[in-house]
């Protein structure tokens, strides 16, 4: 949607406001889900919430209000690739966290996400 940018490539004020509302809503959803996860046990059950579509829900709600249903459809299509990559990343994360501890292990998982999501986007969506 290059047309949404102004002629000199800068993001228009309206888009900035939309981004701000997206950020506020997504941040709130993520924090709320994280708080819920803190209360659940065991950890493997609470961990399900680490795969909750919090950012997606907030962002798609705003997309629906500002750009309409077809934009939601297009975004969700892209999200399938991201979610498949998330499955791959977390699966690798089980072993990488065991080997390298949480921080480096989760960075390895993110690297897997970038590779898988990027590959799926190039091959199927672009």
């Amino acid at each position: 949607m290059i047309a949404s940018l102004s002629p000199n490539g800068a993001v228009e004020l309206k888009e900035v406001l939309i981004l701000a509302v997206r950020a506020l809503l997504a941040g709130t959803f993520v924090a709320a889900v994280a708080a819920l996860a803190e209360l659940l046990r065991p950890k493997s059950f609470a961990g399900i919430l680490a795969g909750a579509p919090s950012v997606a829900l907030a962002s798609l709600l705003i997309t629906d209000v500002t750009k309409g249903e077809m934009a939601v459809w297009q975004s969700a299509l892209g999200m399938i690739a991201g979610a498949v990559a998330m499955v791959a990343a977390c699966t690798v994360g089980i072993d990488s966290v065991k080997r390298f501890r949480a921080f480096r292990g989760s960075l390895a998982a993110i690297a897997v996400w970038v590779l898988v999501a990027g590959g799926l986007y190039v091959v199927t969506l672009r």
Partner: protein
Amino acid sequence: MTAGTPPRRAEATTAAPSPPVEHLDIDRTQVGVDASRLARISPRDMAVRFAFGATVSVASGITSLALGLRAGGVLLAFPAVLPAALTLVEKREGTSEAVSDVRGAVVGAVGMVFFAVTVVALAGRIPAALALLTAVAVWVVTSTALYFGGRRMAAAMGEQHYLPDVGVIEAEPVVETLRRGGLTAAVGESVSGGVVAALLLAVPGSAGVVRGGVVAPTAATMSSLLDVPAELLEREGLITEAVARAMAEGVRRRLGADVGVGVTGPADGAQGLTYVAATGPARIRVACIHGDRGPEANRGDTVRTALRLARSVAEPRRGAAGT
């Protein structure tokens, strides 16, 4: 989801140790809400999560503007919060809990695929807001069904490996804590068959801090090798809190260590009670583990608990007891 009758807490009949005893009750199968954790939610942690969520959403929005909605949509499933969340869990509860968190995230991520597919299938046919609501319901149903289905399947499949799936990395903090405190440790085990000692000894540099281990799965060996009083074993059986404490005290005394760990449970790792005790210079901690997740997972829980308790009693005492 508690399996079986809640365990009876036996009174220790061995010579009363001076440090206070802290008890943990661990149900392997229980799933639910623990309201006591509410106090542990820190505003700073929530702010970090908020920032990550907001950043990913903005990044997705800008990508949508620059490269198109599909490219922006890919980023809606970016696991940005993972490093912060897992590091926090590891810091508070250990690496094994961080691994458990990622295992759960795999299930949630599969649910996320179903979420996105549902939106694609319904958007345009019904109002998008309703499609999103339906997709959230699909995520909840799919994720919880996969989680509980996976647990049942794992329990039904039974034994796959004798050794539990516990990495050496989980024993490293114990050895590090002992080394830092200038302490030594010894382990007396029945159900875990020497795995706790083996894991501790697998950590590089552990030879100086791990005095050794004794595998004593019978009343005779518990009594002769770990000095567990024969009358206690006769009166209460092999699997009680008092026996676990006596094993920990016995191995500690016999091997001249500062920290003693005792583990007693059913020899075949099958369902049933397991008691883990750890005695240190200033603390005694005893955990009662119950519920059945299958022999392999049960053994894993036992070994992790033994490592956790060993580390906690080796730490310098500060204020109120924590987990």
